[in-house]
């Protein structure tokens, strides 16, 4: 798994997000301030534009570049959250020696833990954590149980979808939607939806290799 994997996935994600842009925009208009889709699209575009630079970099350096780009280029909650995710993934030791699925999952789980810490949100608060945490847990357990990687990817896709859908009936207690209190109920969280789509895309790339 090299930096080409990152770029390839970024491009796939771009297509998927663009296809679902109107829905995501609407979600953040309903319970947020409407900018989530633009933040995400801007972020992906910036990452893809990094291709010529990170192509020749080591994995840790590439991830750091991506993290900095996301952090500085997006702003808002997504910038801090996704930026933290990538920054922390880069910190797992020895990733420049080559990455297998186990290490990749470890990196992801580490990143999610850091996101949880900066955002102070747990499962059930109607944020992207309702997708990220269950998926990270499922993957970690899968690795522990030495599950088949393709089956695990399918599980992760399901977990992500379940988590995303679960946000619909939650009352938000973190993020901008929390200002709505009761009125946040009945809407899927935009960040949960975008994360779920990204996870699905990456898992499918792996399934298709």
């Amino acid at each position: 798994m090299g930096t080409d994997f990152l770029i390839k996935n970024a491009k796939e994600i771009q297509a998927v997000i663009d296809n679902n842009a109107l829905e995501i925009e609407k979600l953040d208009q309903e319970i947020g301030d409407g900018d989530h889709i633009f933040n995400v699209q801007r972020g992906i575009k910036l990452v893809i534009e990094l291709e010529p630079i990170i192509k020749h970099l080591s994995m840790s350096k590439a991830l750091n570049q991506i993290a900095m780009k996301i952090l500085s280029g997006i702003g808002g909650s997504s910038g801090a959250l996704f930026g933290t995710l990538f920054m922390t993934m880069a910190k797992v030791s020895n990733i420049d020696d080559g990455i297998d699925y186990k290490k990749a999952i470890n990196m992801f789980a580490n990143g999610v833990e850091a996101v949880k810490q900066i955002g102070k949100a747990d499962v059930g608060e109607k944020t992207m954590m309702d997708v990220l945490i269950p998926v990270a847990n499922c993957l970690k357990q899968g690795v522990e149980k030495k599950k088949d990687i393709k089956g695990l990817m399918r599980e992760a896709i399901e977990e992500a979808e379940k988590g995303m859908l679960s946000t619909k009936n939650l009352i938000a207690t973190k993020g901008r939607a929390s200002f709505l209190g009761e009125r946040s109920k009945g809407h899927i969280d935009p960040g949960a939806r975008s994360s779920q789509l990204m996870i699905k895309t990456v898992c499918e790339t792996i399934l298709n290799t």
Partner: protein
Amino acid sequence: MKKFINSEDTFLKESLQGFAAAHQDIVTCFYDPNFITRSKATKVGKVAVISGGGSGHEPMHGGFVGYGMLDAACPGFVFSSPSPDQMIAASEKVDNGAGVLFIVKNYSGDIMNFQMSSEMMTGASETVLTNDDVAVEDSSFTTGRRGVAATVIVEKIVGSLAESGGSLKECKILGDKVNKNSGSMGVAFSSCTVPAARKPTFELGADEMEFGVGIHGEPGRRRDKVKSALDITNELLEAIIEDLKPENNDEILLFVNGMGGTPLTELYIIYDNAKKILDNKKVKIVRSLVGNYCTSLEMQGASITLTKLDQEITNHWDSAVHTAAMRWGM
């Protein structure tokens, strides 16, 4: 969408350039990362006061950079928190050895980005979080209340203390006090339109208003039929007073803030109506501010902020200030 705009991508940059050029005696703008500083260096040992947040609330915060108020402002994209590199670059530029006080409105995105900045910085820093919007219930289990127009008041007061030599700790304490002494609530008659979205954030019926609206067009307490200025003012004040609980003869600052698309005449009608109501309740208005200070792009609407005053706060309110959007005494 009708705006004076060339493209969504250049919107912020061009606006900052115009701002910098029109007020070059007061401010200097830096780009990539974007931040605004005073055009003149401040004295060594002065605490640097930095604020920032998504764009779209102008003149907040860039319009408050200058003598007696902010040392720097970090404008994010429209309604999106600025990123840590902006805050770090601004801090490096304006930190005079006495540390940096960040004034941050209470939104997840802003808090996370400012927190990351503090962690990445080498110098000392403190943060004052504003959360004056009484439309939202306060709770320590949730994100809590939004920071809205009282941020302007906090920036003025803390800016004055920093200018007069207050320490980082003192600035932080005073900022927290002013925030705690303040309550705000707003109402919208129309939505705003984020340039990148090209269409209004929300739709309101021809006779509807959003009561308790946020400064990003977030939904408020309820959707309501439009009422008379007096009824609206009364309901806004009731919510604020229930929260702030000013006592008989308490002295307050009455701040009527426009959301961007409402004419001054109407803001003064709100002021007049609010004064009648407060006079009745024996709450003493001793300082006033009326105008578009904390806006939501072109939104039609207004908010009321009350800040309880004491001698210290009043003195810092009265002290000289020289920024693009607030100026007196010099």
